[in-house]
């Protein structure tokens, strides 16, 4: 075991993993975290705690990760390169590990232009690839500068992948780079274009990458036709095919959420069978309370004990 986290145990035992997401509040609101955490208990194996998601100021991801632990959840601590330099990042990894955080997801971060402080300076001292390498290096006992770490942080290291962004041919090589950098697991961008996803997984499989890393397919159920349209046109790197839009269009407004969940469950069913996919990462944005019903309907419950 690299970290001994629950997520690592689930994946290494060959179970189909199920992770969720919890966006920290825009304030020191402990109750908001408790409220979002409650429905996730016993339903997901680990929960991603986002780091100033969409470049909007929120409670720190390590702070919210600790609160998630107190709530009985295992956090997957997200860290972006936008807001801190290599000193702060390495320091935060040490602090997070010492306080019981065992999973980390290394990301570049959405550009500050999209957030609530668009005039701020983006740090990007290192990029996500280099952050993965840094956390791996620290786990192996060395800081970025080669100096020794006194008690290495034994993190289970995650990275993101977007199978849909151009140039498509290069995406699988970039995935290989992340694996070489030290990624143990991958959580993908929200998937709506299944055809492209199948092709990406096939290419990853052909290159032997799925033997080296656990890939969790990213799923975000559409809550409404409006959300689908927004995702299609406004969210960078998102690929929403017209058939998704049309299917939601075909049902009356009140039932669109239900249809969105049904579509997500169909995707999950396919991923359970897909060779090279090791689990699902469910990003039910501001829909945490509906995760149990989605999990139930997708046949993800009960979660295995490890």
């Amino acid at each position: 075991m690299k970290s001994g986290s629950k997520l690592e145990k689930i994946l290494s035992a060959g179970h189909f993993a199920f992770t969720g997401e919890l966006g920290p509040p825009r304030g020191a609101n402990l109750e908001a975290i408790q409220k979002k955490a409650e429905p996730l208990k016993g339903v997901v194996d680990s929960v991603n705690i986002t780091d100033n998601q969409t470049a909007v100021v929120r409670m720190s991801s390590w702070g919210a990760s600790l609160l998630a632990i107190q709530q009985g959840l295992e956090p997957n601590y997200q860290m972006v390169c936008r807001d801190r330099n290599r000193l702060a990042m390495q320091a935060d990894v040490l602090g997070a590990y010492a306080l019981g955080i065992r999973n980390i997801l290394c990301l570049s971060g959405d550009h500050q232009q999209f957030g609530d402080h668009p005039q701020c300076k983006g740090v990007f001292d290192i990029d996500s690839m280099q952050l993965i390498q840094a956390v791996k290096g620290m786990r192996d006992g060395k800081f970025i500068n080669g100096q020794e770490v006194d008690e290495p942080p034994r993190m289970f290291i995650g990275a993101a992948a977007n199978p849909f962004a151009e140039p498509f041919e290069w995406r699988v090589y970039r995935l290989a780079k992340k694996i070489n950098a030290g990624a143990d697991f991958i959580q993908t961008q929200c998937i709506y274009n299944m055809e492209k996803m199948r092709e990406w997984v096939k290419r990853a499989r052909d290159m032997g990458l799925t033997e080296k890393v656990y890939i969790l397919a990213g799923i975000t159920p559409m809550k409404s036709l409006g959300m689908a349209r927004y995702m299609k046109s406004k969210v960078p790197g998102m690929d929403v095919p017209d058939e998704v839009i049309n299917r939601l269009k075909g049902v009356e407004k009140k039932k669109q959420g239900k249809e969105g969940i049904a579509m997500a469950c169909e995707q999950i069913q396919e991923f359970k069978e897909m060779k090279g996919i090791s689990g699902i990462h469910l990003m039910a944005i501001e829909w945490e309370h509906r995760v149990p019903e989605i999990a139930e309907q997708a046949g993800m419950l009960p979660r295995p004990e490890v």
Partner: protein
Amino acid sequence: MIVAKRKPFEEIKELIEGYKKVLVVGCGTCVAVCLAGGEKEVGILADELRLSQKSEKEPAEFGEATVQRQCDREFLSELDDIVPQYEALLSMACGAGIQFLAERFPDTPVFPAVNTTFIGVNQDVGWYEERCKACGNCVLGMTAGICPVTMCAKSLLNGPCGGTNGSSCEVDPNQPCAWHMIYERLARQGRLDKIIEICPANDWRNQKPQTLIQPGYEERYESEK
């Protein structure tokens, strides 16, 4: 070259308010080429300033002078006899030129008339684009002659990120994704192996004021260090 843009007129007026004799100082190199602060632009600005003073009881006077390079003492010395006749200087050079002018005339207030924007290229007349951040550690050999530090909004060295929209940057659909261009050009040259290896964290060499003495000149400046 260094590209600059003239400040809004109201801001310039505010900066020099109260001074009755102001010398507008142009620079004949980069800012002249990019049409921001050469002899012609000095004339235009001085005229605009004079016009704005017309209704004043005691209108301020504006002189004009342009030197070949404000970042060079040899050319600044041409102003030694002129500057004492003025209360303030309004420089249209880049930030480096403005500072060197101020350093040469420490008793005279110096104000900037332009904002220095970037190191860039001339796309067409009056159209310039940034190409270099002067990071001090050039990676263009790896990236097919396209700078990811400058052209990628996140300065990624292992791009492209997941936010690319087709082949354009997530922050601006009119801005091509630097890493998409890098990929395409390296593919065309059969050199994709250059970016399959993980590029290590950069050694940012532009994080403190820098001095450069070219090889062969070290001895000459030994005593000044």
